[in-house]
């Protein structure tokens, strides 16, 4: 079977698997919406005090809030994303079975992650965004093409997010307990993706640096695309920035994977 065929099958399977957690999805939508309201009001106060802070007007800032809530599950902004399953398989040794499969490990998990993200984008993203748009004046694009670019940017963001989480999971080949590293990388993602505060609001050089890190590609860039803060040349450079980080991190993941599989010793017989 060709790699394309089985990757699509894995992605579809993962999509269907996450679709079975219906009550959990509803509960997640509820929580995302509640947090969306809370953060939205704090941003209204912030942008009331400083209109055009970070180059956003208030409607754009509010759109950022609801985009963050909509992408929270899909882009695994606050940990999650099912990659801890891989970590657990490495820890328990089940990974030996996976390595025997005639399928590439990284591609397998990437396909599964994209399937999960697609379901969670629909299941957990659309409803909070709709509620946000009903209650607050959002700066959503009317041009379908911008929505298309946004979806592409979100996809690239998920790839970057996956590539980072994959690296963390692979670290379990060397660390006995990977939970500490997972925690630190989760915190870094939360802070440097813009989940805590848009990176545009970060002051001076620190803000400029934050915009260059891979996490910026997970939330800040897609949100900028959606609210119209990136168009034309800046849109292209944003997408390129995401793609470059995605490719670089996936390549690094491959390298680590090769080193890790050489290290595996399967006990028993």
């Amino acid at each position, binding site marked *: 079977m060709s790699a394309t065929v089985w990757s699509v099958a894995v992605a579809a399977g993962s999509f269907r698997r996450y679709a079975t957690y*219906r009550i959990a999805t*509803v509960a997640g939508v509820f929580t995302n919406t*509640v947090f969306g309201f809370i953060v939205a009001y704090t941003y209204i106060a912030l942008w009331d005090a400083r209109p055009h802070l970070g180059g956003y007007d208030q409607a754009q800032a509010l759109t950022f809030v609801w985009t963050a809530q909509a992408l929270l599950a899909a882009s695994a902004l606050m940990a999650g994303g099912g990659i801890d399953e891989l970590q657990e398989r490495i820890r328990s040794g089940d990974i030996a079975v996976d390595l025997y499969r005639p399928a590439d490990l990284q591609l397998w998990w990437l396909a599964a992650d994209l399937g999960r993200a697609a379901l969670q984008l629909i299941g957990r993203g659309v409803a909070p965004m709709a509620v946000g748009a009903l209650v607050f004046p959002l700066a959503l694009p009317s041009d379908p093409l911008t929505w298309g670019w946004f979806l592409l940017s979100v996809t690239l963001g998920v790839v970057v997010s996956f590539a980072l989480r994959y690296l963390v999971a692979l670290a379990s080949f060397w660390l006995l307990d990977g939970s500490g590293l997972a925690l630190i990388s989760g915190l870094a993602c939360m802070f440097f993706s813009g989940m805590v505060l848009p990176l545009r609001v970060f002051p001076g050089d620190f803000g400029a640096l934050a915009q260059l890190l891979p996490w910026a590609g997970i939330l800040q860039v897609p949100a900028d695309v959606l609210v119209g803060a990136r168009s034309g040349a800046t849109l292209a450079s944003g997408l390129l920035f995401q793609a470059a980080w995605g490719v670089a991190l996936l390549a690094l993941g491959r390298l680590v994977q090769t080193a890790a599989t050489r290290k595996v010793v399967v006990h028993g017989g």
Partner: protein
Amino acid sequence: MASDGPADGVGGGRGAAMAQGLRAYGLIVGMWVRSTLAYRASFVMMAFGNFAATALDFVAIMLMFSQIDALGGFSLPEVAFLYGTSGVSLGLADLLLGSMDRLGRRVRDGTLDTLLLRPAPVFAQVAADRFALRRLGRITQSLLVLGWSLTRLDVDWTVGRMLMVPLMAVCGTAIFGAVFTAGAAFQFWAQDAAEVQNSFTYGGNAMLQYPPTVFAKDLVRGVTFLVPLAFVNWLPALRLLGRPDPLGLPGWADFLGPVVAALMCAGAAVAWRFGLRAYRSTGS
């Protein structure tokens, strides 16, 4: 099938049942603490992570204040005071009862039945289950912010006002604890809905960190009358800071914290008993 364990049947009255529950809670907590401390490096790292995760919220607030002087008319020390009081309350409730959100998982995989068979109140067992000492991280971080704010606030500290701060923490812990318990009780019916209670616990905390003037009146009404989280810190803190209350409630409402906490705990206890009695095991 459900009962509150032998505590109901053995007799000895409510006091004895309570003492037995506390003893069981203490024993289980002690066990988890010992097992946590067996991996010291891991514990230090997780506690630090817990500290850092909550500290990020405050970093966001500080970054906001690097751009502005007042948020909703409140200065940074005033917001820090709200942040600290809410964080300490939630942190303590989270430490004492925070693992209760695992109840749904226990119902789903059937391990709740094991707890029903043990000679100790189920509530004590569920509350102490996987007691996470790392949650001291959040409490420490909130205490630091609270301590800093107390040195910066422009308040005439009388004895009464000084006593109000620990009283707020105690009542706030009880209120959040009641929410944790009610949320766990809800999971007897909706096992996968563990995330809903995060809206009220962590979400409530995220809201109480900011001044009530920031939020829409209806939202403030909701957390005052519907899920009365406003009594954790907003109402007493507004009194301490000498600020008017946006809903214009009578002055004595600021001191209702203990009453609200007691009522919420009673309500949560009823919900818990009701949930436990409604529980039907899937059997073998």
